[in-house]
């Protein structure tokens, strides 16, 4: 057979396979008949979102999806979401791979709304994908609970249907500065080195004036291109400027590389806080270089927001505890949850509560309920801005800070060092 | 009759090598000039100098009363000089008719696409390629490609045709046809300068012959005069076969 013929046949075969195979979305948690003896009407609650099974956001996005899956699983096992009028909503999620691309996100969210007829939306992971999805859900008047879109700018676009569970980016490093000054008030000089991308720049844009307002002097202020792994130029400038503290970073690989380079070049700063990378378990791959590095996180396993904490603030507590979340997660996925997992689960919880409160999937009623939400979950406090300019922005959730510390057994562990109520170890200065 | 092309002291250097050395000759309008000489004598280089491919040369080239030295090839083409290459260079992925239309559309007359296509059809008919018009140029055989090369050059209705070994590789029948084309051109007032190794053909059709050797002109005159020139015979001694042929056939 001539090669061209083989190819032609191969292509025809592929086409045939493509046409034959149905493009069924990935669904889980479909309502089960078993145990539904209740007289109530059982209705499907269609929830849609996209995630990044491929591309740059794959790791965190997968974790977030797992959090959502766990929530669906728990709700389903509990017999669904029971509304006041007796209706029971059985969650059914539909999601597609967005390949970490904004055009794909917009196309798929439109598909979710119009073809899959979802009632409510959850978000993709990462700021720019969330922004793209928000535009579509806003166009269609669908409520979207976002996790993993911490960029402040997202929530300053005048949206009315978008609700942010995460603390916004502007808080990522300001809390680190508080922690640092509490730890060592003598710190005066700080170096800021961050990735030049949307998220990191917006974090630093908030952190720099905050540092200056606290009387700190910014001695190095540099950005680096996405994908940078060689930090020698910054290190040399940092060494020359001799700051007491270094804050910045960006995403996973670059942040890890930065921490590694700081250690290798024996940089003597007493405090180092980097974005995104430190809470990731593989951060420990760099060995001793991880030690003492501080990282902001939305949530960590040891963090224990509970009934008592809620009572102290005079707000209700909703849902399961941190411990039962973590153990259920381990049981289902055979791995520890990250803050992305918790964020996904928390987005589900907040949605669940709003549905119960509103007693309906009607967007207007859901919005009214979400607007007045002030609740504590295992993920922390949740309250949304109702100001027209920043509507839906998270205003009450607190960041958690972890620090890698070497235990007496010589093993590195990520300890929660802030806020004080949740800490598992005292923060330490670098040595 | 008037001189249409005047080559004066033209010198082309490549680094240290002098490919054409102060070549000087005139071509009268409506005549056929044969340009002969052993391989490496600088004939093709001289063509490249005339049509602007090598536009940094010494001396001067005057065409139809205007100096064309230093002009780029497209400007030379616009003035009515066309070229058929020794190694055919068809535009492979275009059809035969498109190849010839290119020649008609951008040459001297700058025709519209429709008009150019008409001219192209005529030229293809003239050169016996009409039935291959829609075929891709790459699919032609060698003899057809040679004719295509010539058709493209002639499509621009040139006043001067630089024909570089268009007869090489053709069978006697085809050579005869081609010579017919040249004679027809001459009768239409088109001037032809042809580089050719096929001696009987050159001598048969040329009005005058110029002989180059090592970049230098060593002889010029009617075919008769040139064949009898001892310098020419000596130059060809390096190539005994040619020497034999030139004396035999002349």
């Amino acid at each position, binding site marked *: 057979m001539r090669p061209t013929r083989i190819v032609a046949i191969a292509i025809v075969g592929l086409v045939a396979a493509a046409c034959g195979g149905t493009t069924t979305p990935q669904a889980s948690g479909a309502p089960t008949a078993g145990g539904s003896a209740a007289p109530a009407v059982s209705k499907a609650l269609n929830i849609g979102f996209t995630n990044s099974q*491929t*591309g*740059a956001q*794959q*790791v965190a996005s*997968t974790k977030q999806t797992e959090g959502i899956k766990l929530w669906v699983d728990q709700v389903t096992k509990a017999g669904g979401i029971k509304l006041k009028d007796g209706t029971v909503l059985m969650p059914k999620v539909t999601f597609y791979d967005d390949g970490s691309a904004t055009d794909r996100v917009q196309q798929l969210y439109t598909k979710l709304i119009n073809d899959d007829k979802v009632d409510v939306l959850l978000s993709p992971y990462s700021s720019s994908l969330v922004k793209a999805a928000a535009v579509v859900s806003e166009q269609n008047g669908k409520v979207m609970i976002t996790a993993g879109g911490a960029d402040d700018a997202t929530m300053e676009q005048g949206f009315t249907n978008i609700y942010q569970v995460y603390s916004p980016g502007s808080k990522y490093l300001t809390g680190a500065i508080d922690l640092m000054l509490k730890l060592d008030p003598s710190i005066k000089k700080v170096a800021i080195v961050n990735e*030049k991308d949307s998220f990191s720049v917006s974090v630093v844009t908030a952190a720099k004036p905050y540092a200056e307002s606290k009387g700190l002097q910014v001695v190095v202020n*540099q*950005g*680096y*291109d996405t*994908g*940078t*792994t*060689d930090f*020698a*130029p*910054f*290190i*040399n*400038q940092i*060494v*020359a*400027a001799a700051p007491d503290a270094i804050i910045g970073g960006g995403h*996973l*690989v670059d942040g*890890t*590389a930065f921490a*590694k380079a700081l250690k*290798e*070049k*024996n940089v003597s700063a007493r405090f180092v806080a980097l974005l995104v*990378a430190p809470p*990731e378990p*593989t*951060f420990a*791959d*760099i*060995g*001793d270089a991880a030690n003492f590095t501080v990282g902001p996180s939305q949530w960590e396993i040891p963090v224990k927001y509970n009934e008592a904490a809620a009572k102290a603030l005079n707000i209700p507590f909703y849902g399961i505890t941190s411990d039962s979340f973590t153990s259920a997660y381990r049981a289902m996925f055979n791995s520890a949850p990250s803050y992305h997992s918790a964020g996904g689960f928390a987005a589900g919880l907040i949605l669940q509560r709003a549905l119960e409160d509103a007693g309906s999937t009607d967007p207007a009623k859901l919005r009214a309920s979400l607007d007045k939400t002030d609740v504590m979950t295992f993920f922390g406090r949740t309250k949304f801005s109702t100001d027209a300019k920043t509507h839906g922005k998270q205003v009450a959730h607190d960041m958690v800070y972890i620090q890698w510390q070497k235990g007496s057994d010589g093993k590195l562990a990520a300890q929660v060092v802030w806020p004080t109520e949740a800490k598992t170890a005292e923060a330490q200065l670098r040595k | 009759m008037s001189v249409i092309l005047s080559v004066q002291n033209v010198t082309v250097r490549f680094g240290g090598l002098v490919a054409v050395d102060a070549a000087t000759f005139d071509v009268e309008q409506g005549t056929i000039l044969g340009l002969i000489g052993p391989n490496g004598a600088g004939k093709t280089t001289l063509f490249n100098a005339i049509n602007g491919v090598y536009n940094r040369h010494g001396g001067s080239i005057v065409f139809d009363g205007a100096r064309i030295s230093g002009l780029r090839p497209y400007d030379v083409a616009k003035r009515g000089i066309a070229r058929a290459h020794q190694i055919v260079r068809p535009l492979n992925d275009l059809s035969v008719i498109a190849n010839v239309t290119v020649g008609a559309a951008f040459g001297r007359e700058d025709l519209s696409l429709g008009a150019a296509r008409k001219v192209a059809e005529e030229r293809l008919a003239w050169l016996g390629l009409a039935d291959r018009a829609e075929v891709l140029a790459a699919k032609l055989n060698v003899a057809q490609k040679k004719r295509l090369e010539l058709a493209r050059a002639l499509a621009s209705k040139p006043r001067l045709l630089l024909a570089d070994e268009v007869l090489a590789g053709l069978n006697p029948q085809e050579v005869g046809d081609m010579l017919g084309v040249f004679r027809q051109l001459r009768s239409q007032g088109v001037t032809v300068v042809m580089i050719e190794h096929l001696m009987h053909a050159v001598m048969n059709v040329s009005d005058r012959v110029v002989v180059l050797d090592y970049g230098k002109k060593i002889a010029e005159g009617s075919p008769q005069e040139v064949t009898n020139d001892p310098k020419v015979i000596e130059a060809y001694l390096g190539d005994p076969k040619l020497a034999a042929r030139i004396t035999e056939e002349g």
Partner: protein
Amino acid sequence: MSLEALIPSAIDGLMLGFVYGLAAMGLTLIFGVMRVINLSHGPVIALGMFVVYTLFTGPLGVNPYLGIVAALVIGLAFGVVEYFVALDRVINAPELTTLLATFSVNLMIIGIATSVFTTTPRAVDVSLGSVGIGNVTVLGTHAVAVLVAIVVAAGLYGLLFRTRVGKSIRAVANNRAAAELMGIDSRRMLALAFGIGTSLAMVSGALLSTLFPFNPLSGTGYEVKSFVIVVLGGLGNPTGALLGGIVIGLLEGVTTVFIPVSWVPVLEYVIFILILLVRPAGLLGARA
């Protein structure tokens, strides 16, 4: 701006430049021999990183520097296979065809690598200490990387200019038809050259894995840098590539002292384009 950082930055840049240069040598060798711009270069660099990582973190805990040897061998084999699968059939086609053929390999490698390794950052935790003189700190890992780069580059030079095979490769690069008339099996030489080029890329990836964290997408940045270096040194000129790498490394080190680091790539690309326009044969090459 701090001049204090000038010397250490220059030295750091210079050292890294050797590794950049090694990667670029692979790219330029392939272009020089077969006129192919290898778009699978970046993912192959990343594969080199994962060869070391997998051996190091695997049950045997293979020393990263032994892993480099493995990368060299695997790279050679991988390149030869890639040549026969993706390039042999289209080696004489216009450059768009070979560009896309290697790009398709790029997609396949990234596709498989991300599904196997995910995009989580990985690092090979190896430390060889450091030597400090004044404010200059030279890391053991970087010093070894420079040494390995020099040894491998010298090996390539020896192979190309001191062996029969090298002679054949150069003959094929010069004039494939003439080489075949001389009885050289040009297909084998092309496959071998592609293998060597791929091997160089993998070795540089292996070296980079000992310096910086990485994931399967990490090769892309080095690939673009390799393009810049290759043009600087002259497309097809391995010695030029090594020098080009050093120049780029040094440039990155020195300029960051004077201009914001985030602008350095602009400078690099501008130099890249200018060289293409003014001296397409590269700084070292003869004027085109």
